[in-house]
């Protein structure tokens, strides 16, 4: 007697070899990316951690990369899908350069391309498991946008992915203003990253800040933030009440 167990439900619309190829869960993930517009361009910050579930597996992952001449891409989520996106964008930029027509793809165009890619992949039930932040300056115009793994895209003066949405955006909404200087922008980003470091379990204290202006992209060397743990109430919490942490 021959028993064959089919893994697919009866009314499956996908092809026979479908299940083995689709992205079902992320494996190695990066946590939040925070970015804001400042006077001369865009500032973006991301830490360098790649988590494998609840283990901090990789501590030297660069989650921000320059794209072409005018854009900077930061990603959170599955690292392998981010690398795939970089390959797609590489092809895109190469193709654009081959035209050799003096015009180059700006951040708005790259953002649109990424939106189409993400949305189409989601429609095939095979998403690229990332939340992307795309920033850039072209001909004096600053642009900062974001695309999520299901294709939700928008542009704003400050964006964040993942936990950054809950912890960093309230701070940015309060403290951001037009024409921030470079130092103020960095201070504001560091403020956000510090709160994320305290309150996001997958964040690590090793971050990079990237800046993109008309002149080009600069990604800083990795560094760490100063943290403060000396509140007196942390010293002996059970002092007032036994059995409390």
């Amino acid at each position, binding site marked *: 007697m021959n028993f064959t167990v089919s893994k697919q439900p009866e009314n499956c619309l996908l092809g026979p070899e479908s299940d083995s190829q689709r992205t079902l869960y992320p494996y190695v993930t990066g946590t939040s990316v925070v970015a804001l517009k400042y006077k001369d361009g865009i500032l973006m910050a991301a830490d360098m951690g790649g988590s494998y579930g609840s283990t901090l597996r990789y501590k030297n992952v660069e989650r921000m990369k320059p794209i072409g001449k005018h854009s900077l891409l930061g990603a959170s989520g599955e690292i392998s899908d981010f690398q795939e996106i970089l390959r797609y964008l590489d092809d895109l930029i190469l193709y654009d350069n081959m035209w050799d027509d003096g015009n180059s793809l700006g951040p708005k165009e790259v953002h649109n391309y990424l939106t189409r890619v993400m949305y189409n992949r989601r429609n095939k039930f095979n998403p690229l498991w990332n939340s992307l932040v795309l920033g850039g300056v072209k001909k004096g115009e600053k642009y900062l946008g974001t695309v999520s793994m299901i294709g939700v895209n928008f542009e704003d003066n400050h964006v964040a992915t993942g*936990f950054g949405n*809950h*912890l*960093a*955006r*309230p*701070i940015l*909404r*309060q403290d951001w203003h037009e024409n921030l200087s470079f130092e103020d922008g960095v201070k504001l980003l560091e*403020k*956000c990253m*510090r*709160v994320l470091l*305290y*309150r996001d379990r997958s964040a690590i204290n090793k971050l990079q800040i990237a800046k993109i202006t008309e002149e080009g992209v600069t990604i800083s060397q990795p560094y760490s933030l100063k943290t403060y743990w000396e*509140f*007196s*109430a*942390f010293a002996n*919490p*059970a*002092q*007032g*009440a*036994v*059995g*409390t*942490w």
Partner: protein
Amino acid sequence: MSKAVVELPPKGGFNFDLCRRNEMLLKKGASPPSFRKTGTTIVGLIYQEGVILGADTRATAGSIVCDKNCEKIHYMAPNIYCCGAGTAADTEAVTDMVSSQLQLHRYHTSRESRVATALTLLKSHLFNYQGYVQAALVLGGVDVTGPHLHMIYPHGSTDALPFATMGSGSLAAMAVFESKYCEGLNKEEGINLVCEAICAGIFNDLGSGSNVDICVITKGHKEYLRNYRVPNTRAHFSSKEFTFPKKTEVLLTKIVPLREKIEVTEDGDAMEE
């Protein structure tokens, strides 16, 4: 032979008899009623002289705001107040219950209540119900041993902290606290920080909104500032007057203004007994 019926002692905790009926109803397509939750931002912080508690004032039933100006800072004792997030009925009931227990205890011992007492009563009740009483509380007060601030989770665990936030807007409020808190704040700075944290919750979280309530507790004195800040006043009032159906003949128009709201400015008596 007569059957001996052994009377079992009444079981504590919840009675799960209706669960089967509920499952059957769900299968037939009846949707369960939604509870009134206080999707919320509540915060507390310890400053130089005592404790400051803050809360927003929005109560939601699903995605509808059912109370635009509810009170989330509950009275426990003259020197202890408690903010509640989670299911409104649970926070009300549990704080009322422990408040009465504390009063009886005060009569029994002729002493001022301690925060640790309220803490233990609350946490043992919540643990007993294994998380089914969905009340997440921020308990703060000043007693003989000094100022105390505690977070109490629905399952019964507690934390003692210099600053605490709870509710759906807790991340937005915590972002403000983590970036701006320092030890030894004075009263004005403390109130401003609490107000900022609640406003961060009000404007960045959909479950929180309307106004800011603040309660300042120091040794021997407390200030309950209801609606300390009202950042969401109504912007539009309809300019249309009442219109009668077309064929009515208006015989007489007389406009009587409603009685003016009298402001009672007494300190802190609003919440006691």
